[in-house]
């Protein structure tokens, strides 16, 4: 029982990382119908920004997190303006190939400048254990889960209560109708990239703190998993991405916990295949009212 509670907390922590990345995938898909395969690499950049900031300036977890979010949001906007903007109206396959190109470009640019060797993440958070019903829960997990929830509430607030959030929902529903309201569609798309990339950057720092090891190709697998989480939740749906992320994190952790740790990564792909066969629209797809 205690063992399970502990595993559940681990699963939710992993799920937090997937969920934060999946949110960016789903928001970008919602607004321009592009599967931004470079998104996992923005997550990696976030981890490295946090890493270098922490070792250069000896800053703590929250400042590193915020710095990574700010820089990643700028990088996200640059990626969109430089690579994707000119592809509006191009075929989806052209956009997809471009996204893969951007992904490789980011990965190998980082490798070019600093090599491929992994880094040990600095201890931004003190590890201590909290006793909960006899299970010992890592304080890191608790903080990570809390930070993720705060970020999601913030996102929910932005999307539903602010002007830019309403513009994002309007554009993702009907870009021409949004134009007729006077909404600047290009800026709204940039804002979507900025927010999605900031969340990925936050996930990068959280990943570093939690798993303590980062490398330039670290974004590939979590990026893919987060994409699966977004599809699981119903691509284009914000609550779907969050739920999909948590479900995937918990399932993977359970698969490991029952002794199939070699099958952990396969679990995600089995889920993807099942969802594509059984319910291609995802959990929140089709009858979901919220699209962004």
């Amino acid at each position: 029982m205690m063992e399970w509670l502990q595993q559940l907390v681990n699963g939710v922590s992993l799920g937090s990382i997937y969920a934060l990345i999946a949110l960016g995938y789903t928001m970008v898909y919602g607004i321009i119908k592009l599967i931004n395969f470079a998104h996992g690499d923005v997550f990696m950049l976030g981890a490295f920004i946090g890493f270098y900031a922490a070792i250069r300036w000896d800053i703590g977890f929250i400042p590193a997190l915020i710095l990574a979010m700010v820089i990643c949001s700028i990088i996200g906007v640059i990626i969109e303006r430089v690579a994707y903007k000119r592809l509006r109206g191009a075929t989806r396959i052209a956009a997809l190939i471009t996204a893969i190109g951007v992904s490789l470009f980011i990965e190998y640019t980082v490798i070019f400048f600093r090599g491929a060797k992994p880094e040990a993440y600095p201890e931004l958070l003190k590890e201590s254990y909290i006793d909960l019903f006899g299970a010992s829960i890592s304080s890191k997990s608790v903080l990570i889960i809390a930070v993720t929830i705060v970020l999601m509430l913030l996102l929910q607030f932005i999307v539903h209560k602010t002007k830019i959030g309403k513009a994002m929902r309007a554009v993702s529903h009907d870009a021409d109708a949004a134009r007729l309201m006077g909404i600047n569609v290009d800026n709204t798309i940039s804002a979507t990239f900025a927010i999605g990339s900031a969340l990925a950057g936050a996930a990068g720092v959280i990943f570093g703190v939690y798993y303590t090891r980062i490398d330039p190709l670290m974004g590939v697998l979590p990026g893919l998993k987060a994409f699966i989480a977004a599809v699981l939740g119903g691509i284009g749906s914000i609550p779907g991405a969050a739920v999909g992320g948590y479900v995937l994190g918990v399932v993977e952790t359970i698969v490991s916990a029952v002794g199939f740790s070699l099958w952990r990564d396969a679990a995600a792909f089995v889920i993807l295949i099942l969802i594509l066969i059984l319910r291609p629209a995802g959990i929140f797809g089709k009858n979901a009212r919220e699209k962004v």
Partner: protein
Amino acid sequence: MLKVNNIDVFYGNIHALKGVSLEVNEGEIVTLIGANGAGKSTLLKTLSGLLKPKNGEITYQTKQIGGKQAQMIVKSGISHVPEGRRVFANMSVEENLELGAYLRKDREGIKKDLENVFELFPRLYERRKQQSGTLSGGEQQMLAMGRALMAKPKLLLLDEPSMGLAPLIVKQIFEIIKMVNSQGTTVLLVEQNANMALSIANRAYVIETGKIVLSGTAKELQESEKVKEAYLGGV
């Protein structure tokens, strides 16, 4: 107020508007009638900046607006209610109306206009919290019009507001168009329902396959043999 001079608009190599000229004076209701595919929506989309004319001029008040960005055109006082309503189905009625006032900063004025819209369309007030995708066609048309009015336009472009609606609702919508016009908004009304449109308009143009083929006062066109035959079903 609005002067369109000899514009050509293309979709790729489809020549959708061929040398179209038309004029709307302040305070008028002008209607543009024509069959399906004649180019009516294309003209409105060009006026509101969704499409760019290849050549010719569009002068609004004293400004050239041909080919300008949609947000600039909204800002200068032209609102477009698109064909098929295009409400934001994923948002509440209230949120749709708020988006109509997207470029405005005058909170007081927005509040007043919201009250005015609710007065024009009491149904929208009753349903203000409802997801707009669940509204009936007539209610969605009202919402689309209310949303456009929230921008406080001087010129309102309406694209087939009667489309797919029951006659009774159409009558209501046209009453409201008249009321909006009497409150000081100039109206350019695109319709296939020529009868209704001519009954409330001051002047009218007839468009066929991308060209204006007839124009005159609404009365003249109502009496024109050609219009009677082609658009009024022999009424």
